[in-house]
């Protein structure tokens, strides 16, 4: 026996289905372990999880083994990456091997069926009519057209043949689906090698041109982002967030940059900003009050026009009438009232901001009011309306910035996978041959057909076709 060359042997291994099936199984089983073991977590956490399976006594030892094998950071481990590479190589080799076969299908349209093959067909039907019944090629063609087939006619020695096919291209579906996985894996590889990701934390009113990666490295963006405002809104009468929005402006060397004609851009959860290949996502927010934060009010006196004011803590604003002065003397980011009517702060986050405003007339205290941003009822005071529009300069937004050169391969791969899977599973290649033979005293019509999937549906259609031919 001639010994095969090493490359041929490798090729055989990578083109084998056993390898694919083994890789499916190994990736699946190791992933189960990887999903149970908390990845990149503190050892104690995982030992506790393992204690549930193996008991307190064995857990540390089991953890030691799993840690050594890389299961605690499994999806980045060399052997898991190697598994994915084998998976990709397997796909590529299988695809190359299949190419000639696919090509053969694609370039060879249906031909008339040899007489001896009629009896071998997957689906067979025989119809016999009395001689003289007119079943010409036109009526058969019309019947086929009813099923969406475009028919060809062939007049041979053995009789008249009308034949047609549909969905020949669907043979390529499986191929596209497999190649799409290679594309996605390639995109992921490019991403893991060259993607840059970091965060930017911006106080309201502050700007920055630097993002910080997970490793603590600073990356210059080449332009600056300024947070004009951060806003969280909530569903009515609840603390369930409705939206988180960062209002930002961009600039380079001091000159503003517009995007689609807008200077101020909103970054929302689910609506990131894309600029120069970098995606900025709304990733978090927080609240740090300090002396420079500004309380914003809109004041409408009983007799006057609306006026916006902003002031610092304990500063006064004289706007209601001529001699009434307001002054913020307390603030709560999340104000609530208990059953006894006492106010208290129930959260550290700005869920229900409220300012306690003291109103004086000629230095004499008139009244104090808690004015809540989310409660218009609280804006009503005897001398007019004071709307609390929020505390500005006290919140910060966290933006996640990511530049991934592989993302377009991922998108392309997803699109191809969608198309490929659809064709591979929902479009079938159907072929049908109908032969008419005139015999003494009768006309014989033989139908042969084949399909590469969903045979029951095709059989049902052919049933309809025979009815069409019989009575048409």
């Amino acid at each position, binding site marked *: 026996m001639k010994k095969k060359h090493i490359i041929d042997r490798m090729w055989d291994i990578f083109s084998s*289905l056993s390898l*694919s*099936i083994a890789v*499916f*199984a190994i*990736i*699946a089983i190791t*992933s*189960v372990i*990887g*999903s*149970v073991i908390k*990845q990149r977590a503190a050892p104690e956490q995982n030992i506790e999880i393992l204690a549930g399976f193996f008991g307190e006594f064995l857990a540390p030892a089991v953890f030691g083994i799993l840690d050594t094998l890389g299961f605690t950071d499994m*999806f980045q481990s060399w052997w898991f990456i190697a598994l994915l590479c084998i998976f990709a190589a397997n796909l590529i080799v299988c695809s190359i091997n299949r190419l000639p076969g696919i090509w053969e299908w694609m370039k060879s349209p249906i031909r008339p069926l040899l007489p001896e093959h009629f009896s071998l067909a997957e689906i067979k039907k025989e119809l016999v009519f009395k001689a003289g019944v007119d079943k010409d090629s036109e009526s058969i063609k019309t019947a086929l057209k009813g099923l969406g087939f475009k028919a060809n006619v062939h007049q041979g020695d053995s009789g008249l043949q009308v034949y047609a096919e549909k969905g020949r291209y669907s043979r390529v579906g499986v191929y596209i689906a497999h190649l799409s996985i290679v594309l996605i894996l390639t995109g*992921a590889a490019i991403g893991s090698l060259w993607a840059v*990701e970091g965060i930017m934390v911006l106080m309201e009113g502050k700007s920055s041109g630097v993002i910080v990666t997970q490793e603590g490295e600073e990356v210059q963006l080449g332009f600056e982002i300024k947070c004009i405002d951060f806003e969280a809104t909530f*569903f009515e009468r*609840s603390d*369930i*967030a*409705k*939206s*988180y929005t960062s209002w930002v402006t961009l600039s380079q060397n001091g000159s503003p940059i517009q995007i689609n004609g807008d200077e101020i851009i909103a970054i*929302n*959860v*689910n609506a*990131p900003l894309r600029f120069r290949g970098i*995606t900025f*996502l*709304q*990733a978090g927010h927080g609240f740090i009050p300090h002396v420079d934060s500004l309380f914003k009010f809109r004041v409408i006196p009983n007799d006057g026009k609306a006026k916006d004011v902003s002031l610092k803590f304990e500063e006064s604003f004289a706007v209601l009438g001529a001699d009434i002065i307001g002054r913020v003397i307390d603030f709560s980011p999340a104000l609530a009232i208990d059953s006894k009517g006492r106010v208290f702060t129930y959260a550290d986050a700005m869920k229900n901001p409220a300012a306690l405003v003291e109103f004086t007339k000629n230095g004499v205290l008139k009244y104090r009011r808690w004015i809540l941003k989310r409660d218009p009822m609280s804006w009503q005071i005897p001398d007019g309306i004071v709307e609390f529009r929020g505390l500005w300069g006290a919140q910060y937004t966290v933006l*996640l910035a*990511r530049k991934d050169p592989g*993302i377009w391969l*991922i*998108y392309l791969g*997803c699109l191809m*996978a*969608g198309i490929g*899977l*659809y064709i*591979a*599973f*929902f479009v079938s290649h159907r072929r049908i041959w109908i032969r008419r033979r005139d015999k003494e005293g009768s006309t014989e019509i033989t139908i042969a057909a084949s399909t590469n*999937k969903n045979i*029951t549906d095709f059989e049902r259609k052919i049933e309809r076709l025979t009815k069409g031919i019989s009575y048409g």
Partner: protein
Amino acid sequence: MDSTFFFGIAGIAYIIAMVTYIAYLVFKKPVIGVIATTITFTGFLSQTIAFLSRWEELNSLMQIGIIRAVPLTSFYESLGFFIWCVILSYLVIEWRYKNRSFGAFITPIAGMTLAFIDIGGIHDGLQPLVPALQSNWLLAHIILSFIAYGTFAIAFTTALMYLAVTTNDRKSGPYIFWTTITGLFVTIFIALGIDFLSFRIMVETPAAYIGEQLFMATFRSDSGVISLISYIASAIFIFAVWWYGYIFKRLIESSAISADLLDDLSYKNIAVGFPTFGVGAILIGAIWANEVWGRYWGWDPKETWSLITWLVYAFYLHARMLRGWRGTKIAIVAVIGFFSSLFTWLGVNFILGGLHTVYG
């Protein structure tokens, strides 16, 4: 009349339909079959109305656009929609195969899920969507994922039926496999039901659920006696399923369902579920994750498990189409696939946690 009213009607209809289908299987009177189908269809229509009106309710509550207000994100809505998908797939099968006997085997899936919702006291209030979920991708992602879960559930049922029909010998591996799996499935289900009956409320976090509730009323009860009784009762139950398994075989055989048809149905459902799951759950999920979390894949438990499920079914398809696996071996893969999907759908949320807060 709000959505829960119509859902209630649908629930009652499905339970009656389940009983009627079983009666049809036993008595073989065509008229009973027609009644069963009518009831199922009525229930399905009612649930569709419930779904649409709940959509409108959520839309008017949230005011973030009708596309984004699809009511499929709470545990209650998720379970309900799963039932809807199973019933829809079942009605399609009944219509395509002109065989009503399957109803007796598939409507119990709906019945069990409904019982779970009811005795579990699953919270059925409207829950507004947090910003991360407010996306146009949500609709496609969840609906396609659930259609896939529905088809996988049916493939699971037909695979178990296949094993029941083709095995005779109580000592053979496949027989033991299908009876144990069925017994275990029902046992776990009953134990969960007892949990919910005893505690009445769903705890908030997965960790709290496992720590404080899971099997606490039965196997993990503080009382050693209850715990022991639970184990003995389930052992007896599984033993009974094993011992009397042949009754299922006779029932199926008597209803003109052939082993080949069951094998074929399992395959067809997976052939629809696999690409649907691949596109809807994994690809659309990845694209959405990139929009909202800034990465398309992060080995979050939900992502990892959806990949595991997909690989199991990829295994199924390759073994079947290229290796010619048929019958027992492939039916066992279909059963494993459904357990994997069930874990992807619910197990991940309750046990592993992660970023994915929606029950989908």
